[in-house]
């Protein structure tokens, strides 16, 4: 879920925002009044300083270097803007994020998950950036995927700009597939096939298991949500007022997991796993398959956990029908502090356009990624549609270092992005014990577990006034 570790610099962004100077001048008065410790706006001579978090720290040297290069290029192009980078990884820790919002000392431009929107708005810490975001200031605006824009919009008010959007698929360990006599170019697409392949991989022994899933840290509920989306079910009803996962689809997902754990024994007895654990198992070639977005490979498994880039591929989310009805889509974005001056908002938008929303530049500078030795060619982030998506794909293909065939089954599935349920983290948290029970209790009563979780989620939704 740390999606900002790879920062890529790019060629100069020569776009200028119309009227920036005028707006900057208007903002000077307000900027001078800002008293937050995180706000570092200098207000002399039309100069504006913005603090931006989620800059890769020096512990990730290559990404750190690229971020700093990006900042230098941007500041050279925009001498009236200074970027005050706040280096941190992970980009968001829920406890400090909540405290930061409560204290109102977030950076001028701050990173959030899509699921954080309600919390930020309730804290009253997000600035309305609607008037500042136009086709002129954000050229790719019309091509940003609607579900990602919806994640930063409340009513008709825009509070942020998305920078990463993903759907999930199933990462497979090609090396283990080959060792088990399976065809890695034909990843399983149905739960029955997953079960069959997982059994074959588990037979390799040496502590190797065919399939893995989460059941802690809200990640169990998160994955369950994606799996039920693929089945065609829903976590909550259309109105977001009641749980909807106690369904045939929910039963099917949990039954498949329970079968793999206790009938096939193709899942490890060690459960209660949270994000970060399955990646390590995959990197160590101890795990055959698990559900994730593609960035797990290029952000974690290869650079952090030492996996071999050629050992991995992806298929779509498994489902009973073999064609996923959808996938949980999620991502992250940047919002703007409530106290930001118009000049700071303008400068922040300009920075985000440069760094995150322009093919060939910033995070989409595949030429430099390749030169720096990063694997290139993953079908992510799925941020754009239309002409911008086409351009991004062309640039990606031109610099690809990974074999696109390894990911074609996933890409060709064109999973429908479903967004995340209302009160997502609270809902996920409630489903963690359900996943854990299914994966640790041979006698787990799936119907009872789903019914009990439904009652809890209904209470959560009632409390939140959804």
């Amino acid at each position, binding site marked *: 879920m740390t999606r900002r570790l790879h920062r890529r610099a790019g060629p100069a962004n020569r776009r200028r925002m119309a009227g920036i100077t005028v707006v900057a001048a208007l903002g000077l008065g307000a900027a001078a009044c800002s008293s937050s410790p995180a706000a570092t706006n200098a207000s002399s001579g039309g100069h504006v300083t913005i603090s931006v978090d989620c800059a890769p720290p020096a512990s990730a040297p290559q990404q750190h270097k690229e971020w700093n290069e990006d900042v230098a290029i941007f500041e050279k192009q925009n001498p009236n803007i200074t970027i005050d980078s706040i280096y941190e990884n992970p980009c968001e820790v*829920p*406890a400090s994020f*909540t405290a930061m919002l*409560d204290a109102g000392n977030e950076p001028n431009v701050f990173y959030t*998950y899509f*699921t*954080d*929107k*309600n*919390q930020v*708005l*309730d*804290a*009253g*810490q997000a600035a309305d950036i609607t008037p500042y975001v136009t086709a002129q200031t954000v050229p790719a605006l019309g091509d940003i995927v609607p579900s990602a824009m919806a994640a930063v919009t409340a009513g008709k008010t825009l509070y942020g700009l998305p920078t990463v959007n993903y759907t999930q698929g199933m990462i497979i360990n090609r090396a283990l597939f080959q060792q088990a006599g399976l065809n890695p170019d034909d990843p399983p697409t149905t739960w029955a096939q997953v079960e069959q392949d997982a059994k074959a991989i588990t037979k390799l022994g040496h*502590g190797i298991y065919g399939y893995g899933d989460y*059941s*802690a*840290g*809200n990640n*169990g509920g998160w994955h369950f949500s994606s799996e039920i989306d693929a089945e065609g079910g829903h976590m909550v009803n259309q109105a977001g007022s009641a749980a909807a996962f106690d369904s045939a689809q929910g039963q099917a997902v949990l039954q498949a997991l329970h079968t793999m754990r206790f009938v096939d024994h193709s899942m*490890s*007895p*060690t*459960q*209660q*796993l*949270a994000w970060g654990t399955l990646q390590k198992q995959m990197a160590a070639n101890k795990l055959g398959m698990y559900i994730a977005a593609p960035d797990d490979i290029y952000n974690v498994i290869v650079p952090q956990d030492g996996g071999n880039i050629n050992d991995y591929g992806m298929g779509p989310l498994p489902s009973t029908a073999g064609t996923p009805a959808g996938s949980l889509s999620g991502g992250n974005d940047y919002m703007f502090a*409530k106290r930001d001056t118009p000049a700071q908002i303008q400068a922040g938008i300009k920075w985000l356009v440069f760094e995150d929303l322009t093919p060939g530049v910033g995070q989409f500078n595949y030429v430099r990624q390749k030169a720096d030795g990063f694997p290139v060619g993953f079908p992510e982030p799925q941020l754009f549609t239309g002409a911008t998506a086409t351009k991004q794909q062309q640039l990606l293909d031109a610099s690809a270092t990974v074999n696109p065939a390894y990911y074609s089954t996933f890409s060709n599935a064109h999973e429908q992005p479903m967004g995340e349920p209302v*009160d*997502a*983290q*609270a809902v996920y*948290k409630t489903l*963690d*014990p359900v996943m*854990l*029970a299914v994966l*640790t*209790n041979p*006698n*787990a009563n799936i119907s009872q*577990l789903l019914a*009990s979780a439904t*009652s*809890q989620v209904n*209470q*959560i939704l009632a*409390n*939140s006034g959804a």
Partner: protein
Amino acid sequence: MVATVRKTVPAAGPAPSRAASRLARQARRNVSAHGFLIGAVLCFAFFSWYPMCREIVMSFQQRHLGVTSWAGWSNYIRIFHDPTFWIAWRNTLEFTVLALIVGYAVPFFVAILLNELRHARGYLRCLVYLPVMLPPTAALLLFAYFYDPTYGLFNDILRHLHLPVSQWVQSPGTAVPTMAMISVVIAATWMNMGGATLIYLAALQNIPGELYEAAELDGAGLVRKIRHITIPQTRLILSMLLMLQIVATMQMFVEAFILTNGGAGVNDNTLSVVNLIYTYAFALSGASNYNSASALGVVLMLVLSVFSGAYLWLTRDREGLT
């Protein structure tokens, strides 16, 4: 004139003057004490009393779209309607009782054992105290490894002994006592027993040896000596540690949090009240709020205050009778 003045001055002036100088002397004598006191009072005020008052205020507030408003009892009603609220209280009480049975008794008997030993006492005391010196997170991560159902040390031992293995913290089931909670108690006891053992040991060493010698002459065995000499003589320490133990165990958090990888166990069977406070405040991302967390914090504070008050009253009453 001079004589008159000399007569009138002492008659009118000396009493207040003496009082003032006495006060001044006292003030001078206590100036450093008051200085130290101010530091402590400020520390308590800023870091204990103010947060407590703030917590109470926040428990009656709500925040929406940046506006804080009074919410009446709604935060309390909300937490009482949360199904996990009662689960958390049940688990917390389960942990407290188990920790009392195991974590209170074990250090006492270890202290008696250490007190009776004639050889290697210093070495063994050091050994008992060592776990306290480990950072709790490190100790619990160690236990998380021991408990791992696939690779853990405990299951390895069980396999070598041809005994059935366990899921330990990941054990399903909610029938009290759960294996999951017993696992948490074992880890907590191992981590914390060193401190209690040393306190018990100090108390034991203050018991006059003549009492034991007299008991031995009367033919008392070990159990009778413990019952009639050791326990009565260490009653004050025992009762103080009992209260501290209960107050501490009711606030159990880090043990379950780390052993369950930030979760709450199968069917929430290791979810504690403080864990739920943390969840309300931080772990729900978009749904996190300090107000519900504060309300639950106040409930916990009230429960512990009532318990402590009742305990102190009962203890004082008993002391009066003896």
